């Protein structure tokens, strides 16, 4: 979706302000927001892509005014409500008023948490078809504006680039956010800044995105 998360090329946000000796967390609630997000995610009720979609579905005025952990927390509340693990009353009142719902995976144990951090959950899958593109292929990112989750940023849509890396087949986020499984080929596609931004772009700048095969079409060279 063309939500507030799609920030590439937006203007007006001011300078980047690095914080000297920045701590890992700025408040103890941030620690818990992170841990709860990971532990609740480990129940298997939603994919990482559903999680991202919940964040980017926040009203843009909220998204742009929230710290990042606040975005996570608001999205976590939304997911717990949508998956019926908690109801509105429980979220607002902080009191249990309904029995627990069954979950796909059991509660994360301390040992399980250590394993989850150490192993991760790889996203590479067995391909179901040969790759359409190879290193060096000229491709164009499609013009799409899906209402659902997508990982094709607006600034790259309609633009021509070159495949630089082929990462194998990966989970396709647009499908995964709908709860569907559809492994597709993943590529690194590089664009010149001139192609992305037009006149006045930095002539020595190249920007790449990670592009899933359904985002791409073979490039018909410009006449």
């Amino acid at each position, binding site marked *: 979706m063309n939500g507030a*998360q*799609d*920030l*590439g090329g937006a203007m007006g*946000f001011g300078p*980047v*302000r*690095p*914080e000297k000796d*920045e701590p890992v*967390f*700025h408040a103890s*609630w941030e*620690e*818990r927001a*992170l*841990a*709860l997000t*990971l*532990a*609740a995610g480990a*129940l298997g009720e939603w994919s990482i892509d559903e999680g991202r979609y919940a964040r980017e579905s926040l009203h843009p005025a*909220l998204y*742009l*005014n929230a710290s*990042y952990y*606040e975005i996570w*927390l*608001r999205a*976590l509340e939304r997911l*717990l409500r949508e998956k019926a693990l*908690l109801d509105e009353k429980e979220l607002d009142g*902080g*009191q249990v008023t309904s029995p627990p719902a069954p979950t796909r995976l059991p*509660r*994360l*144990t*301390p040992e*399980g948490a*250590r394993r989850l*951090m*150490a*192993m991760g*959950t790889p*996203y590479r899958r067995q391909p179901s078809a040969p790759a359409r593109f190879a290193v060096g292929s000229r491709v164009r990112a499609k013009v799409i504006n899906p209402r659902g989750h997508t*990982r094709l*940023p607006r600034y790259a849509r309609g633009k021509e680039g070159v495949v630089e890396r082929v*990462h194998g087949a990966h*989970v396709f986020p647009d499908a995964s956010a709908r709860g569907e499984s559809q492994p597709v080929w993943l590529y*690194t596609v590089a664009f010149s*800044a001139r192609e992305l931004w037009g006149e006045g*772009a*930095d002539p*020595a*700048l190249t*920007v*790449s*995105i*990670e*592009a899933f095969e359904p985002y791409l079409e073979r490039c018909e060279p410009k006449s």
Partner: protein
Amino acid sequence: MASCACPTEHGRTAIDGYDPAARVKALEQVLVEKGYVDRAALDVIVETYAREVGPMNGAKVVARAWIDADFRTRLLEDGTAAAAELGFGGRGGEHLVIVENTPKLHNLIVCTLCSCYPWPLLGLPPVWYKSPPYRSRAVIEPRAVLRDFGVNLPETTAIRVWDSTAETRYLVLPLRPEGSEDLSEDRLASLVTREAMIGTGLALAPAVAAI
């Protein structure tokens, strides 16, 4: 009160009265009571990122690559496998790609759509990395962003920005600083800042690191 105040990340009141600290406390209570979450598991997660996993991991990978040409080759070929040789990997770094700075090419990592970041090598991302100024500008005016970090690259240095729009996670292998020829691997690692591995900084000169 300035009329064009820029919203701050912390100590701010949400427009709708949302209080994250109170919400998260209540949420944890309910999730634990309903049996969805084990407090001890939460503590493990917090401990992991507060203490065990951070930029010191990535710095070790970089230092090794600087002194071991074979490792460097393996690292650039398959970042995930090479990092695993040093014991690093896992969540948020399942598919690691390391990109190498050269005197003519500078790499920069961003995630314009959210906050993708190589957790096992750098830990959790800093606030600026996740915030709109960096995410919006890194792909259109990276040289200006670098100036915000005090880095002035020659106009002739090409810049390559990697927008992390999938589960692949990028790390920059910075240039080894001059005058670091005789340093130990540990001392070399101490020159490698988080910013150097994102691309918003350069590795420290040995003299600076010693101060």
